[in-house]
């Protein structure tokens, strides 16, 4: 890790700590569970999830093949995490506001928001996010990085690749990785379940494995551009903030110092914090795509071709290795070992 990143990370930790009390109000805690689901802490450690437990920003709930978790947020929200799912809570700064993103990194999660409020969280997958209003929605995240949103009630605006589509009651949309949302469709009379949808995504992948990696690269490039941009902003903001802090030290008089601190220095610190939050958000989203999609696709190809490789297997492995190399170049400096 280089020194510059270290300084920015330290700043992020300090500022995130300052927001901890405010964020805890948004945590939904375990009201019911089955099996032995685990909680992955932001420091990378794992522990069993229990009643009353919750995932804070930077943390994930991981369910196994026979697990199920239900989180409740008072009367406001219920989140149902199905088996073989990875549910993450992240934060991003959007339009100057810190937002919580409840993400289905892999598998299937259903959300029910019982009443309208000014700051409902955003939901989504690693590659598509959605704003919600009084909503009951299920989000699937497929092995190839695709997403599927199924709305039972309320309104959902799904965004990906710079484009958005608004879903109303009984509507759904699929979002291919690295692309804009597809055409929305009615879910009335359609039996859609995660395992059959996921199997369809795998069939699609197997029909052209290299094309699937190309789509993942498009998405990774998008995360990389955003991460680079926010990192540069963070560096610039930190330089200005450092200068302001030095200036603060020179000011005489407690009242003048407090005024400068409140009106000049703290807003600059918040700017730095927002930029750090956003480059980390993009890097972590990219890591999730690598961890839960790229690894899954590699496993599918390797395990099917271990004895008699199909003609396309060699090309797939070459492209896969190239993509892994590029991933390192794009994101290694933004990620800590504890993220992996």
């Amino acid at each position, binding site marked *: 890790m280089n020194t510059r990143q270290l300084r920015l990370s330290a700043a992020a930790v300090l500022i995130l700590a300052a927001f901890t009390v405010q964020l805890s109000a948004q945590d939904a805690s375990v009201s019911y569970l089955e099996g032995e689901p685990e909680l992955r802490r932001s420091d990378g450690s794992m522990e069993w999830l229990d009643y009353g437990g919750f995932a804070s920003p930077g943390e994930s709930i991981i369910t196994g093949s026979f697990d199920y978790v239900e989180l409740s947020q008072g009367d406001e929200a219920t989140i149902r995490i199905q088996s073989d799912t990875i549910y993450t809570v992240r934060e991003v700064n959007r339009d100057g506001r810190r937002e919580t993103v409840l993400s289905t990194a*892999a598998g299937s999660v259903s959300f029910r928001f019982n009443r309208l409020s000014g700051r409902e969280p955003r939901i989504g997958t690693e590659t598509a996010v959605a704003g919600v209003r009084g909503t009951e929605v299920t989000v699937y995240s497929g092995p190839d990085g695709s997403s599927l949103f199924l709305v039972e009630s309320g309104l959902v605006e799904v965004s990906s690749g710079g484009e958005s589509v608004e879903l109303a009651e009984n509507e759904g949309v699929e979002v291919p990785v690295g692309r804009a949302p597809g055409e929305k469709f009615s879910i009335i009379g359609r039996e859609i379940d995660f395992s059959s949808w996921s199997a369809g995504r795998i069939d699609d992948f197997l029909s052209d494995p290299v094309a699937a990696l190309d789509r993942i690269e498009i998405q990774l490039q998008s995360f990389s551009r955003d991460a680079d941009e926010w990192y540069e902003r963070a560096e610039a903001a930190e330089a200005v903030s450092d200068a302001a802090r030095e200036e603060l030290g020179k000011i005489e008089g407690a009242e003048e110092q407090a005024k400068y601190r409140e009106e000049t220095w703290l807003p600059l610190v918040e700017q730095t914090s927002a930029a750090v939050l956003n480059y980390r958000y993009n890097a972590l989203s990219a890591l999730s795509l690598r961890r839960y999609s790229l690894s*899954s696709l590699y496993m599918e190809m390797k395990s*099917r071709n*271990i*004895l008699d490789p199909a003609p396309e297997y060699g090309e797939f492995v070459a492209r896969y290795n190239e993509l892994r190399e590029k991933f390192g170049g794009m994101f290694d400096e933004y990620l800590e070992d504890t993220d992996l």
Partner: protein
Amino acid sequence: MKNKNRVWGVAALLVLLLTISACSTVPPAQREDRIVQLLAELDTAEPARLLELSATPFLLDGEILAREADVGTMWANLREAGFRFDDASVVTVAAVSADSYVRVEDTRNVRVYFDRYLPEGAGVVEITTVHGSFLVLTGDKVGRIPRIFGFAGPR
């Protein structure tokens, strides 16, 4: 005669203690006989047992499989493809050390996996099969058999 018997008795006791001590200091994940049992069972076990014998996260070559479902799919696909650890013989068994990860792959991903997920007493096992040689990561135990944490190969 009485003294001679006493000496033999003490010697026998020492041998017994040394044997017990050796057994208790080699973790199951590094014991060749237990590893062979694991490999044999991986070739025949039912899906639920395969998951029981496998750690999650699981290291496949340089990739970390984070979901139990992916580990289950991997075993199902391998079985479907006709893969088995046929005629496996253990070539070397080594305890995990700080730079063992390089034997699998010299990448950050694999280093972090070794640091974070391999338990104390884990082993890096080199085996040969009719399909080539593999590195198998073992650790922990399920009953008397070690759990498989990952494999890389064939090489």
